[in-house]
């Protein structure tokens, strides 16, 4: 059964407030080598049948806002 892995992240140009909080928290734990953290969401979607194009539709219709997000679609399984 195929599944789609869809990763939604903030565009590089958009400041990632959650990522900055993670930077601070990791530094507080003593990891001084942390330079930057970017966060995102990953959706694992099981399908009866489907295609990568359908995954792109999921991005444009629901999962991402094109103003601030990048949406990467991968098709896996068989």
């Amino acid at each position: 059964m195929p599944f789609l892995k869809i990763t939604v992240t903030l565009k590089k140009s958009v400041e990632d407030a959650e990522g900055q909080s993670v930077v601070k928290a990791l530094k507080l734990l003593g990891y001084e080598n942390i330079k930057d953290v970017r966060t995102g969401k990953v959706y694992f979607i099981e399908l009866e049948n489907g295609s990568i194009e359908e995954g792109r539709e999921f991005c444009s219709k629901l999962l991402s806002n094109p103003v601030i997000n990048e949406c990467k679609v991968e098709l896996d399984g068989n």
Partner: protein
Amino acid sequence: MKNPRAAVMTMEGTNNEMEAYLSLIHAGANAEIVHIKKFENSEKKLGDYDLLFLPGGFSAGDYIRAGAIMAARIKAKLIRDIESFVDDGRLVMGPCNGFQILIELGLLPNTEGKWETEAALAQNISNRFEARTIYVKVNNNKCVFLKKFREGEILKLPIAHMEGRFITRDERVLNEILTRRMNVLSYVNREGKESGYPWNPNGSMMNIAGLCNEKGNVLGLMPHPERVFYKVTESDWTRNGTGEGMGYRFFLSAVEHMKEKF
């Protein structure tokens, strides 16, 4: 003269619908709370109303992005009706989650007139849920909902959101908003000066707190006027006298406009 009809559109997770309903009723509208499903299955028709209110809250749990799921449902079945509603000059107001939905739908700012998503309300720069009182300045009172306010007037309103950082798709959209004076409300300090955090609670571009379309009949804003319709619902009402709450004039402006027009 008949009272104008207003619909407060709800779904699972929205809140403040009762505050919005009572504010509309007490401002003189004939309001009702309508679940989105009744519009989807044509049990209710948007065309029967003069005002659509998209309430605040956490529609569909705010999963994916705040307002994304409710906006996708509206886009799938109701968007053409809402676009005609706006073209007809009827009124749409969306505070907080309602503003997030109006932005997702492309009803605001809609500088190109294509109803496309031109902006976003991203996570607050503080990475915190900001729930407190803030100050905003009225930059333009041509917007139907702001007619009872003076330009330059400073309002004290409550906010409660995690995703309110207004960002435009590009510089052009931002310039159009500013040139056409669609940035009707800006976050300011107590003296009325645009300032950074905590006065700008979310890191919005140009301190934008509220947007009105060029025609003046669609208002989206992060604060909640419906929560301070009455003086006793303001945070400092025991210290600061009597009269109406700060949100009262938003609803009175809209209802009086509808009574004149429809």
